[in-house]
């Protein structure tokens, strides 16, 4: 694949991407969520057509109009979410719409073919079992069989381990190696460094739609990879930190905080962290290391298991989001359209979302729409939300405008002491990103404490006064911006090795 470009409204998902798969290799396609990995593979599988660029398969230029074209060329993809019919059996799923099915299928011969293929990879699958009753690992095998019976020899696996147990993951990796021995090629899309390193022959790292690194697995270090995933040249980033200041007044003090994750394992382990007024503390790290759970615990969306969260002298562990808002904690949630706004409602109704129970926006349970509309108009003009009117549906706004609306609402309807911002610039274009950054810096200058989570190292280095690195649910170290270097951050993010060298 050469020079692949794919634009979606507001995002450049693939920016001039070159990508090569060799015969008989496991190629890991590594990158954070939203880096453009899945888009690239969807293009190769014919689901999307690229805006420009060429694809050659075995040297022949091809045009892929649909997955059917891709399958004909031996390219097969297993999506993150399985596309199986749960009420049907394994063999029915595998041979669905297969040309050998015929009008009256010879199930027995199909079953025996299936069993032969499965045993080749050491799988114990009953062809007559209903798919609904299978484990995620077995369902994945069914998906793989679907590709194998269609003769696929280039297999694209999108985050295949996200639904698997560690043992199933190991089995899958074994299968992948086995497939490669048979001369097939496997692309493993993942955001987990360890997986890429343990199973692949070559690694390509994508970030913000571009390929930033392609190298044989034996020639890269874990530090290099983690830096490539989250940022680029540390030395090239100009810091906008506020510089040293005299007094330090803590606004948020977290001690011994542990939080349960969705899967029932501890996502945040014994975290201690302090945020001071007038600083930006960035939490850096490869995503999925407990950042989201930590933020949710602070903002009242998730009950902490134990530990204290002191906001301005008050323990707020377990308090409701509304109470926290009233105490001066503002929050920019990740995925604004999902968490921050109600797309079906108008802009002014979205401005009312957090303050509807407060005067002057309502009294005795009755809403005062005039005062809400007035505030909404202020938000829209002061934060330059590009909308025809405050009565427009919030869902019709672009990502940058949604983010400005959320920021504007949080800052106009309250005077925050602490602002928690989770991935505030994710998915925004350059102009919108810069605007959000300026707002955050302006707040910092007004003595607001800011706790920001970002998976973009450039951004962390640009904005932060201090950087806390999270790894495996722990804060492995907090360093000053001036102490940040590629080595220090790389080793903390990839292995959770705390810094001792950095003084």
């Amino acid at each position, binding site marked *: 694949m050469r020079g692949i470009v794919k634009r979606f409204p507001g995002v450049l998902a693939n920016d001039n991407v070159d990508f090569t798969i060799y015969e008989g290799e496991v190629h890991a396609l590594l990158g954070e969520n939203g880096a453009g990995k899945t888009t690239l593979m969807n293009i190769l599988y014919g689901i999307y057509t690229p805006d420009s660029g060429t694809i050659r398969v075995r040297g022949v230029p091809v045009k892929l109009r*649909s997955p059917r074209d891709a399958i004909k060329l031996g390219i097969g993809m297993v999506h993150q979410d399985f596309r199986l019919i749960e009420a049907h059996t394994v063999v029915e799923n595998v041979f669905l719409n297969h040309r050998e099915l015929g009008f009256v299928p010879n199930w027995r011969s199909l079953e025996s073919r299936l069993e032969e293929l499965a045993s080749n990879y050491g799988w114990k699958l009953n062809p007559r079992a209903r798919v609904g009753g299978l484990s995620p690992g077995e369902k994945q095998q069914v998906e793989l069989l679907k590709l194998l019976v269609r003769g696929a020899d280039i297999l694209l696996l999108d985050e295949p381990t996200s639904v698997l147990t560690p043992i199933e993951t190991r089995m899958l990796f074994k299968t992948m190696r086995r497939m490669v021995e048979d001369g097939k090629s496997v692309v493993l899309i993942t955001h987990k460094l360890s997986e890429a390193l343990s199973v692949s022959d070559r690694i390509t790292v994508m970030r913000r739609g571009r390929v930033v690194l392609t190298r044989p697995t034996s020639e890269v270090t874990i530090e290099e990879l983690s830096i490539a995933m989250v940022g680029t040249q540390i030395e090239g980033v100009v810091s906008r930190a506020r510089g040293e200041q005299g007094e330090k007044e803590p606004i948020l003090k977290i001690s011994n905080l542990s939080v349960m994750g969705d899967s029932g394992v501890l996502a945040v382990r014994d975290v201690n962290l302090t945020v001071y007024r007038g600083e930006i503390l960035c939490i850096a790290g490869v995503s999925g290391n407990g950042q989201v759970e930590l933020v949710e615990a602070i903002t009242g969306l998730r009950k902490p298991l134990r530990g204290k969260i002191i906001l301005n002298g008050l323990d707020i562990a377990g308090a409701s*989001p509304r*109470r926290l808002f009233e105490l001066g904690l503002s929050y920019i949630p990740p995925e604004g359209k999902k968490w921050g706004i109600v797309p079906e*409602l108008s802009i002014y109704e979205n401005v009312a979302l957090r303050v*509807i129970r407060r005067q002057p926006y309502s009294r005795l349970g*009755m809403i005062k729409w005039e005062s809400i509309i007035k505030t909404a108009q202020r938000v829209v003009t002061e934060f330059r939300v590009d909308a025809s009117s405050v009565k*427009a549906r919030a869902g019709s706004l672009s990502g940058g405008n949604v983010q400005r609306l959320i920021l504007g609402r949080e800052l106009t309807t309250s005077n925050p002491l602490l602002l928690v911002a989770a991935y505030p610039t994710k998915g925004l274009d350059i102009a919108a990103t810069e605007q959000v950054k300026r707002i955050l810096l302006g707040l910092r200058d007004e003595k607001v404490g800011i706790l920001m989570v970002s998976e973009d190292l450039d951004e962390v280095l640009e904005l932060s006064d201090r950087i806390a690195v999270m790894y495996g649910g722990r804060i492995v170290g907090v360093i000053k911006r001036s102490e940040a270097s590629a080595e220090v951050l790389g080793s903390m993010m990839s292995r959770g090795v705390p810094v001792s060298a950095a003084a």
Partner: protein
Amino acid sequence: MSFERRAEIGTRFSISVTLGMLILAFLVSGLIFQLLGFSAPQIYRSFFTTLTSAIMLEEVFRRSTPIILAAIGLCYSYRMGFWNIGAEGQLYLGMIAATGVVILQKAGIGLGEELLLPAVAAASMLAGGVWSLIPALLRIKFGANEIITTLMLNYTAILLADYLIHGPWKDPAGYGFAQTVAFPASSKFMIPGVSEAITYLMIVGVITALTYLVFRFTVFGFESRVLGLNIFASRYAGVPTASTLLRGVFISGALAGLAGLIVVSGLIGRMRPGASPGYGYHAIIASMLGGLYPPAVFMSSILFGMLLTGGDLLQAGIQMPKSGVEIIMALIFLATIVAEFVKRYRIRVLRLGRGVVA
């Protein structure tokens, strides 16, 4: 061919799609009747005669009343994203509770003749409301799907009513008929100098207007809409999820219970098996057809009252079976679903070679 989500849905566009689909539903049902050997023009005429005489019109309003009450109630549930299919059961609970109060009254254990109306009203609303809280609590506690639980509770309620009518509550002076004692005049809603139909119309009019105001101007109404539209944002905004849901669902059930009271105290005068011909189900379609917008729900419920009254005429006039009306109702329901789809998606036929998003 592909379907694209529309970013903006205009009000006028939305209304015209719904009306267009409604007309289509009538045309298709006419075609079906024609094929079945009835005269479609005659059937259309029958429905419109219901609007031409004062007596017919009163009947239309009478039959619309329980549908309006239940359908307005459903607006509270549906706006919160609680898919309550149980208005029918809640309606039956209202009937049962009201009948219970009347039986007590006749046995001399009651609050007295002048307090009978408030007593039956309170009892029927409380019973309908509490009945609807069962599926709401099951959803909050165990995540049980309310579509299933509310539907199942309908059968429970109907069977409970049947048991009472055939068993302990059977009217001893009823010549063996399966029915309860008649409701006394003091248990009926009555505004002096006004007919029964107009009385009901005034009551449901006030309730419809109040509901409109609740959704437009109260924090509770706003928060229930947020809850129904985006559960994530409502948690972030700090909407008290459980208590808002319970309150809304209770109102929903209470209004269905009140509908039950009007059926037994006014429309048929006593409880009988099959006392409701499915008002609670008609209400589901009416609330959807009205887009959960109270004034529109009011109008679409009246349409259902018209259909029921017109259906009675046809049954008597040209021996069209009762299920004929149900065909029309089912088609209206389908039309509503299609209309929703047309409103939300733009249908686009892609040129070949442009890549089809699977």
